[in-house]
């Protein structure tokens, strides 16, 4: 039923560019949607768009990440809409730029909610997200954070869903793995901001819990690219591993590591899934946890086609967040309820296990996802060990 609503050229485009696994994925989704569409036909699939919000730092110092996240959202929406939308209704995200500032985020939040009546808002970065969280609680608007991993986000609001595990979860897995391969001492190089410092604290806790010892900690400021003095200082105490928590600048770091050839192994989290680092010979041998982002190659190709850039980590995460929320909205519609924040909230918990591009389980407000240990070799990530969800 729903398929017939789709303009044929969308179908043509998707089939032409997607090879097998994606087609299966997309067709699977479409089939699912079609099924739900049937169920929800009484709901008048009139094709009026479902409007959601996206509040991201599109300018300012955090914009480099914000723009990647926006690409992810746009890609997710285009995929959903290409497959017929949600129960026949296309998704539409209204974007607001908060410049990474909490106050602008609050204005944008109120604007989207009170003027546009959106029930759900995608957000980014812990500052703005934490600033919006009390409003989300008060107004029962679902806030979806697909990028920030600060631990405090886990309990900030019953309406705040984190579609990515908090950093603590990843780091616990990393520490466990490091202990299992006999790494005893570690240095930490972290960005002196919210994500970096909470990552540092998580790592200290987790690594000490498995019997490791932290022997150096060096902060760098956001946007700093000269890591040499810090690296030299860390190298002088000869740790087994160096835990790195940076959100940008992995390219220069890889350069400088390559030039220095230190004895320690570089370890980190999903942040390492950054093409700038991957394609740098300096990143050879780096170990990192990976919130599973096995985007089917065809999806990645479609992404590349759409934006002319590789699918970055953030792109995948935010596209996945769109897929998860589309499912939840679909469920709300299928129950014949109006699309409100409260209903979406309930739907997320009633679905709990989302078998989308990157499967996620919501027992709490923060997704549990499979976390893998990967190693970078010759410009590719190689799976070292899997830690299934749980």
């Amino acid at each position, binding site marked *: 039923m729903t398929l017939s609503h789709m303009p044929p050229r969308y179908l043509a485009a998707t089939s032409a560019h997607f090879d097998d696994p994606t087609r299966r994925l997309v067709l699977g989704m479409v089939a699912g949607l079609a099924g739900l569409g049937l169920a929800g036909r009484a709901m008048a699939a009139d094709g009026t768009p479902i409007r959601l919000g996206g509040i991201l730092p*599109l*300018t*300012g110092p955090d*914009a480099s990440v*914000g*723009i990647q996240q*926006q690409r992810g959202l*746009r890609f997710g929406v285009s995929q959903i809409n290409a497959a017929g939308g949600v129960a026949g209704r296309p998704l539409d995200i209204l*974007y*607001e*730029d908060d*410049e*990474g*500032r*909490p*106050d*602008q985020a*609050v*204005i944008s*939040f*109120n*604007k989207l*909610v*009170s*003027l546009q009546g959106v029930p759900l808002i995608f957000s980014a970065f*812990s*500052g703005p997200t*934490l*600033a919006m*969280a*009390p409003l989300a609680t008060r*107004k029962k608007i679902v806030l979806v954070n697909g990028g920030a991993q*600060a631990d*405090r986000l886990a309990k*900030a609001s019953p309406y705040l869903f984190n579609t990515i595990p908090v950093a603590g979860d990843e780091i616990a897995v990393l520490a466990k793995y490091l202990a299992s391969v006999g790494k005893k001492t570690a240095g930490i190089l972290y960005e*002196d*901001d*919210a994500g*970096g*410092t*909470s990552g540092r604290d998580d790592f200290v806790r987790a690594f000490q819990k498995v019997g490791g010892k932290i022997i150096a900690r060096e902060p760098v400021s956001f946007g700093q690219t000269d890591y040499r003095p810090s690296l030299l200082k860390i190298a002088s105490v000869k740790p087994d591993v160096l835990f790195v928590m940076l959100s940008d600048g992995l390219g220069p770091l890889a350069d400088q590591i390559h030039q220095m050839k230190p004895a320690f192994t570089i370890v980190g989290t999903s942040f390492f899934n950054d093409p700038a680092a991957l394609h740098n010979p300096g990143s050879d041998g780096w170990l990192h946890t990976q919130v599973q982002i096995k985007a089917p190659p065809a999806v990645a190709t479609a992404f590349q086609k759409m934006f002319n850039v590789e699918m970055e980590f953030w792109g995948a995460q935010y596209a996945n967040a769109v897929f998860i929320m589309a499912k939840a909205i679909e469920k709300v519609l299928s129950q014949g309820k109006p699309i409100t924040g409260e209903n979406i909230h309930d739907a997320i918990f009633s679905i709990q296990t989302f078998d989308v591009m990157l499967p996620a389980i919501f027992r709490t407000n923060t997704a549990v996802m499979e976390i893998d240990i990967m190693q970078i070799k010759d410009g590719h990530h190689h799976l070292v060990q899997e830690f299934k969800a749980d």
Partner: protein
Amino acid sequence: MDYLFSYLILASIFVILGLSTNLLVGVVGIFSVSQAAIFGVGAYTVGYALSNDIMGFVPALALAAVVCLVLNVLITLPSLRVSGDYFVVTSFGIQLLATAAFTNWDAITGGASGMAGIPTADLFGLPIDTSLKTLILTACVACLACFAFRLVMRSPFGRLLMALREDELAVAAAGRQVLRAKVEAAALAGVFAGVAGGLYAVYLSFIDPSTFDLDASVLLLTMVVLGGARTLAGSIVGPFVVVALPQLLSLIDLPTAIAASARQGIYGVLLVAFMLFRPQGLMGRKI
């Protein structure tokens, strides 16, 4: 409605802050790019006091005002010793130092991840827990601040400050103490910034170092430039326009990839254009 409220609340907070900046930059002519740091100290003081249940909102706001008064005097003092451009560097440095302190003094500020869950304000037991109540509170304080600014500008003190900007030597020759006048102006500007910070903290219930960084100081400067120096009308119009600007600019349909930075660049264009073609701003006097 809430959208309009949140705009009005922030705009009125920035009016108070704009008055503070206008007093220093526009009236006395001290180039300061560290007013956001003082704003931040006010916000953190109130945030810390309320979060740790040390005192009520009103005493906390008073404390913030006092702390900011003292600090602003201290950071403005170099302007007495070092002239013009040296002070620009001092001011930049103070702003960067303040950001480093907000980010790293975890025990007080919550560090880089900020201070979340600041309780809402209460006025002697009356909770200020809705947008409307907050708007009434901030608007009242902003009106008070405007009234104070007007009183000052029409008083001999205001005239003394204006004279100070034009010629410190002549002020001294007229038998006035330059040092004392500057300290008093800085103190007053500090009180304004501290109160604005306190209101900001309770309204957003979340503060973090990014709100009080160099960009924020530049934004404050933009408000003064846009509104115009030294007039009350300018100090009100500037913040109202600048706070609305991101919202207005988002109406322009630019390709998403550039829209972002382009919008930010427009602040710069505004600064340059106003200085070239309208140094008196929308409704002020020449800066």
